[in-house]
């Protein structure tokens, strides 16, 4: 089809029921403050990694909660675990632990372990 200049666009819709939210569920089970995020973006504004790359903890939170895991999986390495985000968060989310748990969950997931 490329020869004729046509492409197939993948749907951008978040198919909530088809998605796998095991990473978010793992984080919430071990760090209940994960659920308290109101997506204000304070963490992302202060984030050193976020100021130089497209990493955003706010975005990661929402994508994991919707089961859109691939982008967070790829970007989560960019966090340097400095913990400035914890100081900023108005809802008391233990953001540093959220990242640590997300990394742990992705490792388990990659190794096909039960989460």
């Amino acid at each position: 089809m490329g020869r004729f200049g046509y492409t197939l666009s993948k749907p951008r819709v978040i198919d909530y029921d088809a998605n796998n939210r095991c990473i978010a569920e793992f984080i919430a089970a071990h760090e209940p403050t994960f659920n308290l995020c109101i997506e204000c973006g304070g963490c992302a504004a202060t984030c050193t990694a976020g100021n130089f790359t497209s990493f955003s903890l706010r975005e990661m939170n929402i994508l994991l909660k919707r089961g859109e895991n691939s982008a967070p999986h790829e970007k989560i390495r960019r966090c340097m675990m400095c913990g400035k985000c914890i100081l900023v968060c108005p809802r008391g989310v233990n953001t540093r632990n959220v990242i640590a748990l997300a990394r742990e969950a992705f490792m388990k997931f990659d190794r096909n372990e039960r989460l």
Partner: protein
Amino acid sequence: MSNVVVIGAGVAGLEAAGQLALSGYKVTVAEKGEKIGGNLCNWHHLFPDRRNSEEVLNYLKKLVNKPDITILTGKEITNLSRKDGKIYLSFIKGDKLEADAVVIATGFDLFDSRPKEEYGYGLYDNVISSADLEKMYRNGEVRMKNGEIPEKIGFIHCVGSRDEKIGNLYCSKLCCVTAVKQAIEISEKINNIKAYCFYMDMRMSGVFYEELYREAQEKYGISFIRGKVSEISENIKGKLVVKAEDTLAGRPLKMELDMVVLMAGIEMSKSGEHLADNSSLRRGENRFFLPADNHFGNNVSNMKGVFYAGCCVGPMNITESISHARAAVNEVINYLRNIS
């Protein structure tokens, strides 16, 4: 002794009547419905402390149980006029009443969700309103139309509020916290149910509302999705498919739900509209009664001796309605003292 007529026997009307009687006035309450309590009767438990609404109703009933208070039910007042310092009230069936002062407490009507056709209220069996859910709570169980227990439920905020398409630009103010309260209640009643709130903004404007919101997230795991639901449809399995943009993810989202609750907004009551228009009482762009001054005359109408109490001037919670009714009583007392 001066005689005051209160129009409406909801929270504000009953509070005003009770307080007026305590101050020594003879009060007649005219209620269009057959029972007293107004919209309070349609709610099971109240936000944010989840007090049983019957406690408030019993307080009000006790407050108005006085020899100086006459309550007329099934009596809708359609017209007010003022002549020689007296106010004349006409009932829908032609009877008349005379008063030295009047407190209008005609309250609100809940938005009828049927004009929001894209949500299918009245079309789909399991799309219900917030008031319908309260009725189920009061009857003791929440069931889908086929009798099954729902496993996934959605709450849609701002149905009939902040919506130019149906002509209501204002925020109804109470629906956000009602959704949070109802989502918590359903999570307690049904094990492992998943509850989702679709909101435009979370407006937790009252004392302890934000705390309730936190509790909903932390203790009950209720999910909040920022996005106005564009449509609800029923699929072949009979499930409700909800479409919204998840604006925080910047992506469209679709989800299957067993049941959807529409958080119906608050509108000027139909009886209040008739009364206003027949009596040349001013109304705002939001269709509610327009008080003389937003800060200093919030209970004062453009007709001397006629005052407002409660939701007839705009959405209010019960705490505010009671305070507003007491403030109206203060205005009535000052007015009657000055004319006599």
